[in-house]
């Protein structure tokens, strides 16, 4: 199973900034291993973030996103203690959901 994400969120003047660190290989499918065989592509395809059950951010990732991706975004609203839930799905169908609270 995939490793957990690190989620940090802070609210200031009615705007919440969310910082997410995901643990993923993000293989492009362009690399070859020592034996010359292509390392199959393996990357996050979709990322969704929810604030109190409402989707506030949706993103499609591709192979150009770096290993162990870092994503930060802002949305209007959000108060201290509110729940932020981030989930991702990769091209192998593996998924991971983690949550954090707004500080």
């Amino acid at each position: 199973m995939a490793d957990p994400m690190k989620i940090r969120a802070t609210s200031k003047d009615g705007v919440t900034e969310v910082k997410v660190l995901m643990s993923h290989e993000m293989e492009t499918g362009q690399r070859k291993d020592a034996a010359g065989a292509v390392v199959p592509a393996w990357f996050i395809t979709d990322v969704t973030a929810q604030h109190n059950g409402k989707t506030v951010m949706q993103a499609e990732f591709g192979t150009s996103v770096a290993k162990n991706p870092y994503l930060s975004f802002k949305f209007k609203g959000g108060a201290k203690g509110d729940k932020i839930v981030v989930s991702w799905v990769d091209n192998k169908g593996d998924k991971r959901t983690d949550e954090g609270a707004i500080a």
Partner: protein
Amino acid sequence: MIDIKYPIALGVTAALLVMPPAVTAGTKRAAVKAPTTKAKPAPAAAAVEKDAATLDFEKHRAEMEDASPAELFEAKGEDLWKSKRGLKNVSLAESCDLGSGIGVVGGAYVGMPRYFADADAVMDAERRIVWCMVEKQGFNFAEIAKKPFASGNSAPDQTSIVTYVAAQSRNMKIAVPLNDPRVRDVFETGKEVAAYRAGPYDFSCNTCHGSDGKRIRMQNLPNLSKPEGAIIGVQGWPGYRMTGGLMLTHQWRMNDCFRQQRFPEPKYASDVVTALLTYMIGTANGQLYKGPGIKR
């Protein structure tokens, strides 16, 4: 006649054409050389240059520290530290003493290398953790030593555990117990290793890291014989290398030094690496350790 004279004339003009640049190059070189022969202005100029060259790196590093993937390994390491593993099915948290009691991780990293009576040896953090994994949890050392450092797409368990332990010493002062004669002994060995000149290029650690103001290409090299320099060599390890996305430990860095010197690489968790780490971290005593870092 003309045919003969012509080449001579050409030869003269060619010589004239060549001469002026040669002269200017000569004077230029002389102009550059002059300040370096005077000891004082050169380090000052180097210091200014250093700031300009490292400023961008530092800015980038500050941004990256906010989102250092080292934290992912820290989280993984915490899990590994606390879970029951190995043949003996015990956790390190309930069996491993890093110097201030079983399971105590706060401030442990900055207090190592230190002497451990149960192993009758001076050990650095990684060596101690591996020792605990082998002695307390029943892991096989030979298995661990087969692939001791991160490569490709995987980081060994002990790397994550070291990262977790190091993070528990974030913003603490380095405090290697150098007044312990056994630690002092290893420290002195490390000092000698750092001064040992050998290998096909015949240089020692100190050739580049033993005095102020040295650099390799654009990179400034810390003077490891002083606390302010030694901390630069300690800071940021264990570190996440953006190149390749690997989490690497201080032990790995020492092995890489030997590789760069074209020395045979030491065996995993060997005495010589502990000695070098004791010398370097011990010299940095009293300096602030900022926790696991991020490297180019």
